[in-house]
């Protein structure tokens, strides 16, 4: 073997090991976090956590039932605002938009996506909390919903664009109008990807804390309706983790574990439901 070949093989081995190590590192961090959460959060999790309200300081037991329901309500409202707007906007951009207007919208959406979440919080605070003079679930849901718009919009657009032109042509060759083709062929073909995008958006805002601190605020009791401040898992994690009580730290870990599990369950459920009617090209 000549020197050149030996050198090439050495470089190959070195680069291969380097990429391998980096992959293990990336995956390792994720599994470390997951393991740590399960270890700390899972072990101190009890049935009470899901059914009881938080107890006053010093009193043992208690749970975060109100925060779980609060988070669910906030995410529901955020979905109702973010998903239709983002999805329909994506349909417009991908299928009907002109070149100039579309690129402006696309650029604006990317900017919106880059706006720090705390700024979204201030926006909702100024727009809803200040005029109403009280924190509310409504304000928190709107702040999260606005954050969902750009993510949903861009992912919907991308997945719609990825649908082959041949399918649109096939529909139009059968007498379908552009709109009919989009509704009956293009959107169904892209729905799996679009739903994944929505799940990602939901997962992203589910953990948002900053915009909730001064919109939904927090609440140690049940929060009926939309006009009162409500507890939510991320804010509870924040409050409990920085508190000086050992008991609260354990509950913060449990809350983190529950939050992650909920996001995972929603994600898996959505995939299962969608995969039932899936058509994969060979």
């Amino acid at each position, binding site marked *: 073997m000549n020197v050149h070949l030996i050198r090439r093989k050495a470089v190959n081995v070195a680069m291969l090991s380097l990429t391998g190590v980096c992959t293990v590192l990336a995956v390792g961090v994720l599994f470390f976090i997951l393991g740590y959460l399960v270890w700390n959060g899972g072990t101190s999790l009890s049935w009470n956590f899901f059914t009881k309200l938080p107890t006053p300081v010093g009193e043992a037991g208690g749970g975060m039932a109100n925060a779980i329901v609060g988070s669910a309500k906030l995410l529901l409202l955020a979905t109702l605002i973010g998903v239709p707007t983002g999805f329909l906007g994506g349909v417009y951009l991908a299928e009907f938009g002109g070149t100039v207007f579309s690129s402006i919208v696309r650029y604006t959406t990317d900017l919106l996506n880059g706006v720090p979440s705390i700024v979204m919080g201030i926006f909702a605070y100024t727009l809803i909390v200040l005029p109403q003079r009280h924190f509310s679930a409504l304000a928190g849901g709107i702040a999260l919903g606005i954050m969902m718009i750009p993510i949903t919009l861009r992912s919907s657009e991308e997945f719609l664009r990825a649908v*082959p032109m*041949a*399918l*649109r*042509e*096939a*529909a*139009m*060759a*059968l*007498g*379908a*109008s552009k709109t*009919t083709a989009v509704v*009956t*062929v293009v959107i*169904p*073909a892209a729905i799996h990807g679009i739903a994944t995008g929505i799940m990602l958006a939901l997962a992203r805002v589910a953990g948002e804390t900053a915009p909730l601190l001064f919109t939904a605020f927090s609440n140690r009791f049940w929060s009926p309706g939309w006009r009162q401040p409500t507890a939510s898992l991320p804010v509870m994690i924040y409050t409990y983790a920085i508190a000086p009580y050992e008991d609260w730290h354990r509950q913060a870990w449990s809350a983190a574990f529950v939050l992650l599990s909920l996001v995972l369950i929603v994600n898996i459920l959505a995939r299962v439901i969608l995969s039932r009617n*899936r*058509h*994969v*090209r*060979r």
Partner: protein
Amino acid sequence: MQTNAKVIMETESTDIPVDANSAPKVGAAPKIAARNLNFYYGDLQALYGIGIEIFEKRVTAFIGPSGCGKSTFLRTLNRMNETVKNSRVEGQVLLDNQDLHELEVSEVRRRVGMVFQKSNPFPKSIFDNVAYGLRINGFAHGRADLQARVEESLKRAALWDEVKDKLHDSAYSLPGGQQQRLCIARALAVNPEVLLLDEPCSALDPIATSKIEDLIFHLRDSCTIVIVTHNMQQAARVADFTGFFLLGKLIEFDATPVIFKTPAKKETEDYVTGRFG
């Protein structure tokens, strides 16, 4: 060089222009006619003064080297070219003596069906693929009628026996040749008067190809068929008439045996004998 186009252009007086020199003499009526048709992609002219008559319930093939405009011409016959941005068409295409541009575009495409080069079934079940055209056009009256029409279309496309037990499987689970016949069944479901086939066999193996050719042979009883093909043997096998395109012009159009055995034009002879292309 005198092409058909010019001859037809000069006889504007009658409803259906007939070129006595090169128009094939048959007892069939023209289903589609093009008159002095020019087509542009932006500034690029793709078709030059095409004039032709396509006869009812006959198979007409277009041959020619890549980029000669045969597919472009095919796509003007159901106005699919309009989906291309900045495209422009001049001249007339007549369907049963009616200008295509005076008809609703959806009506044109219902009456003039199309099958594409690469099979493009929808990501739906086999049944839903065939039912698609019936549903969007509101052609089926009730579930039983829909099922009957889907079955009939699959039978016309000679696919029924192969798929009748798995109608609700994904269309993508079928092998390539069957996918293409599914696309034909889907096009047939809305009962088109004309069926345009744009190189339907170019991605298929010889066995699948021969099945499609058999199908074309049987469909000519109920449908006017126009097929674009790269494969000269295929044109010779399936077509009653053949047109030869070169550089956006229709060089010669005649009965298939004439084109392949005694073509009038030098370019046609050079192409069919394999001297170029």
